[in-house]
């Protein structure tokens, strides 16, 4: 027979300490949010930067910047659960989202924390936390997307500099960033993963050409970046030469299951909003909401989002226990991408002709649903396509043979 070893059980309730954290955060948000200006238009880059970084500064001054970063580097040293609570509360109270501070706070910053030299940390970490510097991520290239390790952008050592020639693509916010976390090819003779180096690139370096790319929605959030003999000091290298792949992968484990929390809470809001809209819109003389099929589809989405919220809590608890998220992270992204496609399809069908406008029509709050539908088309592509995610699940978790 099994023996009960302790009274500890799985528990969805928050500890007293976590509840105090939440209450204090809530009070602070209630206090400061009224003074935050309305969100600038999606393509008003100048003001978006001011808005995003201004919010970051407010977080910093209140001690909430870098919530999950270690205390010694200016972060709050919060647990993953507290990070979750932070994301939940800020989203529920409609505080600004991390926005263009995303790469700095959640990707480049944590990489620097783990791998950078003392001088590099001292120089960059405080400015990320204060919102002084915006970072972007220059990993993908035209010929290195899913197969990121095959990247070709070349860096050749010349004295105290690396001289970079090549191209990056899909670099979100490159046109407004101050720094870029960049992967370059420093050795072409070795297997692809072993000849990559991680560099800090100042975005005002000479020899760069940054060209915004238009998304299918017509906005310019990502760019192509061309490098023609761009000089970056060797002192900007993080980790050893040719050890950049490992450095980049270290960061992925930092993410610890929280990357999609805000998005997912927004999705819950979208679903609730869709239900409200269905009660207002009429079809065949009665409210669309009277349609059992539609109601059931909306209920499905709503229930699935609850389940994904539970999955998120599991992933975060796993990270808290073991330090990293296992297959749950891939499962989350796969289920979430598919769910968002269905949510988008459903909302367009409900909006019918109103879906032909990207903006609200006739005081009906339709714009966010149309934008949400288009955004959903990118979730299964960005940060690892759904096909690649499935390969990872099948090969790494299920142990099926590789087909490559």
């Amino acid at each position: 027979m099994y023996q009960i070893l302790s009274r500890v059980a799985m528990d969805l309730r928050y500890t007293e300490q976590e509840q105090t954290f939440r209450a204090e955060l809530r009070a602070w948000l209630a206090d400061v949010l009224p003074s935050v200006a309305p969100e600038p238009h999606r393509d008003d880059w100048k003001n978006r930067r001011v808005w995003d970084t201004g919010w970051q500064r407010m977080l910093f001054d209140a001690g909430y910047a870098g919530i999950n970063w270690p205390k010694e580097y200016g972060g709050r040293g919060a647990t993953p659960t507290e990070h979750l609570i932070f994301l939940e509360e800020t989203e529920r109270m409609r505080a600004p989202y991390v926005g263009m501070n995303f790469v700095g706070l959640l990707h480049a910053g944590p990489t620097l924390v783990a791998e950078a030299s003392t001088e590099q940390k001292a120089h960059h970490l405080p400015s990320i936390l204060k919102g002084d510097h915006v970072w972007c991520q220059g990993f993908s290239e035209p010929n290195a997307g899913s197969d990121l390790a095959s990247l070709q952008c070349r860096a050749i050592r010349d004295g105290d500099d690396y001289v970079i020639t090549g191209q990056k693509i899909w670099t979100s916010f490159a046109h407004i960033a101050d720094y870029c976390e960049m992967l370059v090819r420093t050795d072409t003779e070795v297997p692809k993963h072993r000849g990559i180096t991680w560099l800090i690139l100042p975005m005002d370096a000479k020899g760069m050409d940054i060209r915004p790319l238009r998304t299918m929605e017509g906005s310019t959030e990502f760019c192509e970046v061309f490098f023609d003999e761009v000089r970056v000091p060797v002192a900007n290298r993080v980790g050893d030469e040719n050890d950049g792949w490992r450095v980049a992968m270290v960061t992925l484990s930092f993410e610890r299951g929280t990357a999609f929390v805000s998005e997912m809470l927004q999705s819950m809001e979208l679903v609730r909003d869709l239900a409200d809209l269905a009660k207002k819109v009429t079809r065949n003389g009665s409210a669309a909401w009277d349609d059992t099929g539609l109601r059931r589809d909306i209920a499905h989405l709503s229930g699935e989002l609850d389940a994904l919220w539970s999955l998120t809590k599991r992933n975060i608890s796993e990270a808290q226990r073991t330090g990293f998220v296992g297959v749950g992270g891939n499962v989350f992204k796969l289920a979430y991408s598919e769910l968002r496609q269905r949510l988008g399809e459903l909302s367009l069908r409900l909006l019918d002709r109103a879906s032909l406008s990207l903006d609200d029509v006739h005081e009906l709050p339709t714009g966010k649903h149309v934008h949400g539908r288009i955004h959903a088309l990118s979730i299964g592509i960005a940060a690892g396509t759904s096909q690649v995610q499935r390969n990872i699940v099948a090969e790494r978790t299920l142990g099926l043979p590789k087909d490559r």
Partner: protein
Amino acid sequence: MDFWRTQDQEALQDGIRSFCQGRFPIESLQPIEATGGRLDRAAWRDLAGVGVFSLRHDGFSITDSALVFEELGRALIPGPLTATYLAATHLRTVLEGADSGERIVGLAQVAEPVTMAEHLLDLDSLLILQGDSIAVVDPNSVPTQVVERPLDPLTPVHVMLSATGGEIVATGDVVRQWCREGAVLTAAMQVGASFAAIDLAVEYAKGREQFGRPIGAFQAVKHMAADMLVKAEVARAATYAAAVNLDGNGDDDLDRAVSVAKMLAGDAALFCGKIGIQIHGGMGFTWEVNAQRYWKRAVVLDTHYGNSEMHADALAGSM
């Protein structure tokens, strides 16, 4: 029973396809977007010149028309194609010049939650479809509000603030037939757009390499492409069947056949649009690449003559 294109039909369809490739090459779409989706009257007259709007008076059947409209959909030709065709077919005397391309006719169906008119600025006549009557109004006289950023930049839209008035030009059976034909021709365009999205995705999957081989060599990509084809072929069968029935060469219930076609063609076009983007990876999400144009047009066409769900409701209602 012989449910396969005749030689004449093959020649007709191939002819229209090469006309579209020459006169409306896919590269010509981006410049049109830059104009706010304005129609080019000379191009419209050329469409009329090859007989697109006068097919029925020239002795062609609804099935022949569906084959032609499949090609128009494949080429993503913008403009009120079905409305002008139907006006030339059913309102020849009232709306003179629709068949010759001199009169561009649009149609707005009164709908919930909003009624929208497409291509309003280029219309010579606007038809308003409400219940089982069609009225004609002067497009300049109706109170409207422009949509600043249309989902499909090739389909500019205006919200109609009022959709009443005008002279009633068709009622009853004519309107019912109009709607059936409109749904089937729209379904044909959706089928054409689906196949074009497949062609583009397949071409990309053959050329794009990752991990040292064409992405089309990965089964995940092959299966996505095959699924697109399955949807499109099933929808094509349903669409041709509806057209053949409308021509009187079948014994199926007409409304049922039409709803099956519109429902499946709508689903196929949206599916092929979406998966076409996915196969293109990040490229699929860019303005430059045409993958997203097929998806956007699929969204627009789904709202014509009843979306997929409405036709499913109609089918349920008849069961």
